[in-house]
C-alpha cells in the first residue's frame, strides 16, 4: 500500500530561486493495485517516484508505505519496502560483477552477514529463476553483467527488484530505452511478477496503449498535479484517443499537442 499525503517537493535553482515540482500532491494506492502514471515531460512523474523512494526529500507532507510512516527514513531504509527499476538499464545493476553476485545482492534487503553469498543451492535456485526470464541468462550466471544486452540487463534488474519480495514496485519508464521486441518481453515479465508477488505497483510510461493495458488504474499528471484519475468502468471504456482528448481538455489550451503527452 502506498499513501502519499500532501507532499511538497521543490528544487533549488540557485541562490534564493526555487522551483516547486510537486505542490500538495496526494495519492493513495491499495495493496496489490497497479497504477499507470502518464503525463507530459516535466509533469513530476519521476519526481513523485523519487519522493516515494526517498531519492529526493519532501519539504512537506507524509508518505506511508504499508501503513508505516517512511517520511523521515533515508532511501536505503525505505528500500526495505521498495523495488525499483529505472529507465537506464545500467542504473540497477553492478556491471563489473557477475549475474549471480548481483542476484545475491538483491535477494535480501537489509544488513549483510559474514556468510558465503552464492552457495551452490542459491546458484541452482537462481538458474531456475533466471530461466523464467527467457533471456538465456541461466547459462551466463558467472558472466559480468556489463556483457549483457540492454534488454537482458533490464530483465535482470526487474527480477532483482522483485526478488526480495518488497511490497511496492516503482517502475520509471523501464522499457523506454529498449527496442520494441525487448520492451514487449520486459513489459510481459512486469505483469507476471506483479501478479506472482502480489505487488503494489506504480508504472510511469509514455506508452498510452501499454498504460491502459497493464493497469487497472491510470493517473494523468500535468505540471505537478494529478489532472485525471481513472479506474473501474471509467478506465475500461478509455482508449488512447480518449486519453489525448482528456489531456487537452484538462490542460485547457489550444496548442496542446499529442506530442506533449506521447513523448
Amino acid at each position, binding site marked *: 500500500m502506498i499513501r502519499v499525503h500532501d507532499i511538497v517537493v521543490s528544487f533549488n535553482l540557485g541562490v534564493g530561486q526555487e522551483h516547486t515540482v510537486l505542490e500538495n500532491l496526494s495519492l493513495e494506492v491499495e495493496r496489490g493495485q497497479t497504477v499507470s502514471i502518464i503525463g507530459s515531460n516535466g509533469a513530476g512523474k519521476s519526481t513523485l517516484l523519487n519522493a516515494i523512494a526517498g531519492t529526493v526529500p519532501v519539504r512537506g507532507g507524509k508518505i506511508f508505505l504499508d501503513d508505516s510512516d517512511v517520511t523521515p527514513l533515508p532511501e536505503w531504509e525505505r528500500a526495505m519496502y521498495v523495488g525499483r527499476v529505472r529507465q537506464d538499464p545500467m542504473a540497477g545493476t*553492478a556491471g563489473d560483477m*557477475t549475474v549471480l553476485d*548481483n542476484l545475491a*545482492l538483491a535477494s535480501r534487503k*537489509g544488513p549483510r552477514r559474514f556468510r558465503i*553469498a552464492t552457495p551452490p543451492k542459491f546458484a541452482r535456485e537462481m538458474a531456475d529463476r533466471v530461466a523464467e526470464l527467457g533471456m538465456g541468462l541461466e547459462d551466463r550466471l558467472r558472466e559480468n553483467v556489463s556483457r549483457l544486452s540492454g534488454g537482458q540487463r533490464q530483465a535482470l534488474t526487474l527480477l532483482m527488484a522483485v526478488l526480495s519480495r518488497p511490497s511496492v514496485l516503482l517502475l520509471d519508464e523501464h522499457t523506454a530505452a529498449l527496442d520494441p521486441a525487448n520492451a514487449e518481453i520486459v513489459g510481459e515479465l512486469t505483469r507476471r511478477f506483479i501478479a506472482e508477488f502480489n505487488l503494489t505497483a506504480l508504472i510511469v510510461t509514455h506508452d498510452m496503449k501499454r498504460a491502459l493495458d497493464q493497469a487497472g488504474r491510470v493517473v494523468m499528471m500535468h505540471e505537478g498535479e494529478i489532472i485525471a484519475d481513472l479506474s473501474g468502468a471509467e478506465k475500461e471504456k478509455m482508449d488512447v484517443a480518449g486519453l489525448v482528448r482528456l489531456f487537452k481538455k484538462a490542460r485547457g489550451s489550444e496548442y496542446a499537442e499529442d506530442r506533449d503527452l506521447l513523448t
Partner: protein
Amino acid sequence: MVEGILVEGLIYSILALGVFVSFRVLDFPDLTVEGSFPAGAAAGAVVAQAASLSPNAFVKALAVPAGMLAGFIAGGAAGFVTATVHHRLKVPPLLAGIVTMTGFYSINLRILGGKPNLPLITNNPMLKLARSFMGGILPSEWSLLASCILICFLLFGLLDLFFHTEIGIAMGALGDNENAVIQAGIQPNRLRTWGIMLANALPGLSGAMAAAYQGFADVNLGQGVVAAGLATVMLGELVVHSQFIGLQLARVFLGSIIFRALMYAARSWGYVAGITPNDLRLLTALLIIASVAISRYGRKQR
C-alpha cells in the same frame, strides 16, 4: 638477492592489497595510506619493542605478531578517520585522505615518542622469529621468506573468502554502483567505512612488517607508498587479466614482486644508464603512466 626481492615484494604486496581495496574495489582514491603505513610501522615497532623487553618469555616470543596486530589496528584507525571525515563533512575522498595523512604525521611522531625514528633493539626481530619458526631447516633468509609466504597465503585466503561473503559482495557492488547497494537496503556509508578501514589496516600491517624487517620504524616511511602501491596494482593488472576476485588478489602479489624486482634492478644496474637511487620515484611515476598507456592501448585493440 632473489630472496630479498621476494621478501620485500611480499611485505609491500600487503600494502598494495590495501590500495587495491580502496582504488579498485571501493573506487575510493584514498591517499590515507601515506599516513596509515607509517602509523602501522610506528605502532608495530613500539609494541614489538615493548613486548621484546618483557621478562615474560611468552610475551617476548609474540613480539612481532603483536606488533603486526598493532599495525593493523593503527592503520584501520587512520582509515576510520578518513571515512568519517568524508561521510560526515562531505569532504571529497582525495581531500579527506590528505587531511588524515597530514594529521597522522604528527600522531606517528607521538607514537614513536617524539622522535622521527625508532630502531628496534633486536636488530631484525622478524628474521629472528622466522628463523626460530622454521627451526633451522632452511637458511635464515629463506626461512624468513617462507614465513612471509605463509602470512601472504593466509591473507590471500582470508581476503578471497571475505570477498565471497555477503559483506564482501556488497562492498564490491558499492564501488561499482552505489545505487544497487542502496536498493538492497544497505546503509552505504557504514559499509564504505568498513571498506576504507580494511584498505588502511592492510597497509598498517604491511608497515609493521616492514619496520620489523628493516629493524626500525621511521616517520617518513610513508612517502610515496600510494604511488608504489598503485604501480604494483597496475603491473599486476597488466600481467593477469581476470574478472575473478581470487586472481585479482593474486596478481597484486605478482605485481609487487615485479615492482620490487624492477626497483632492485634500477638500484643495482641502473648506473649503466645513469640512473641513481634518486631517480626511483621518477621511475615509479613512469611505470604508472606506462601501465595506464599500455592497458588503454590494449583495450582499443580488443
